């Protein structure tokens, strides 16, 4: 029990101190999650729009596939990425294994279906009159995409926050692809796994607190975006 309390005290200490290994883990976590969110939003928003806006054969089946991918186990994504970027894999020449970029690639795969599925759901819920109005005003396809996405911006924000939560807290991909290398690919979550493995439970709790602080900072800045 006592490690819960000492963990919280330690966590506060880590946040105000300049502990190099903690800050390097914070850095790796932010880099990987930011890059993967940028990629998954860039790819997921248009895909979600297409999936929600247009009717086409097999649409239902495709939705089911995307919804199923929401349950992707992170360790399996890690194994998939490992197979691709291992020096024996098709992308081995790019030296992505044991790098933050490698982690980001895996996390992008994890976040993509979340962004796509939530965006599609929101687009589907748009008032059908909006489409008619836009078409009658002579809007082109590009304008329709932009206007629809803009109309549902808060929903998209929710999609991004949900995906970010998953990316920020995953440990399977970071461990498998990053290798938990100190000062390089050790993220907060792999550091938590390591400390717990070492029996240093208080340190695990402390790092968990650091992670929650990052999540809080991100959500506060997003709340700032919504402010009038």
């Amino acid at each position, binding site marked *: 029990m006592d490690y819960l309390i000492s963990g919280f005290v330690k966590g506060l200490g880590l946040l105000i101190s300049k502990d190099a290994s903690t800050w390097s883990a914070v*850095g790796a976590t932010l880099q990987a999650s*930011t890059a993967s969110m940028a990629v998954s939003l860039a790819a997921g928003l248009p895909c979600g729009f297409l999936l929600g806006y247009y009717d086409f054969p097999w649409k239902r089946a495709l939705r089911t596939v995307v919804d199923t991918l929401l349950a992707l186990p992170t360790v399996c994504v890690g194994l998939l990425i490992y197979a691709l970027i291992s020096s024996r894999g098709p992308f081995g020449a790019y030296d992505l294994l044991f790098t933050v970029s490698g982690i980001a690639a895996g996390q992008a795969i994890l976040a993509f279906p979340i962004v796509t599925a939530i965006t599609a759901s929101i687009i589907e819920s748009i008032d059908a009159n909006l489409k008619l109005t836009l078409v009658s005003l002579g809007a082109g396809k590009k304008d329709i995409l932009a206007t629809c996405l803009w109309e549902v911006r808060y929903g998209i924000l929710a999609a991004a926050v949900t995906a970010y939560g998953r990316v920020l807290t995953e440990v399977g991909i970071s461990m498998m692809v990053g290798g938990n290398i100190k000062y390089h690919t050790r993220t907060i979550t792999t550091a938590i796994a390591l400390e717990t493995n070492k029996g240093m439970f208080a340190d695990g709790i402390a790092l968990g607190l650091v992670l929650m602080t990052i999540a809080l900072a991100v959500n506060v800045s997003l709340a700032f975006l919504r402010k009038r």
Partner: protein
Amino acid sequence: MLTKKRVSVLAAGLCLMMMAGVALAGSGKSLMMATTTSTDNTGLLDELIPHFEKETGIALKWTATGTGKALKLGQNCDVDVLLVHAPPAEKAYIKNGFGKDRRQIMYNDFVIIGPKADPAGITGKDISAALTAIKARGERFISRGDDSGTNKKEKLLWKSAGIPLPDQEAWYVQTGQGMLATINVAQEKKGYTMTDRGTYIKYQDQQGGHAPLTVLVEGDAILLNQYAVLTLDPKNCPHAKYELAKTFSDWMASDSAQKKISEFRLLGQKLFIPNAN
């Protein structure tokens, strides 16, 4: 309102963060190693590697995992050098054309630890008699169960005691986790486990010297735990940095590194004993 201006401010911020990440990536000579949890968890590498980097100018990164996975990473050419502890598997590895040179560096020994009350009465017994007693009494035995070097050794001990691996027995608990985590499970379950001495001392250190689990069986020749550096066969991995790996192997066997290994202590006890050849 979510204005377009605010969105562009956010986007610019994200771009900056990503560029900062790219700028952080360094250059120069570097070596990637896969090693076992024991060398990392005890803090030995944190102590040793900065000296190696300073003396040779080679940046060494390592990923700590079980010996089984470490060997696999080497076989797939994802690392340049290995520091592992499973001699029979290492020799087979070289024979199969994955490893090139094997250099023994240091050793410690494996011990059987358990509750001070010792419900199976194994204190002072030889290892085979101890395992037989644990099985006969059905006392809990906590195994790594992860095909690590330690786990390979443990399986060998059951075999040499003439007991088929108790994979399905209720008293045989396989954690699938690292050594310290497994010791903690043994402590919670009041069971026995096998550990390398270095990790046990680390555990004692964490418990403030009042560890509930104590060493019950030790000293058998079969319990020797030999660590070795393995370079990868350039025929299998032409892109692995063989020359740098060789430098690391030589450095680990050098007098100064061997002395540092010998001086590395916790609670006044040596964790590893250097024996490079």
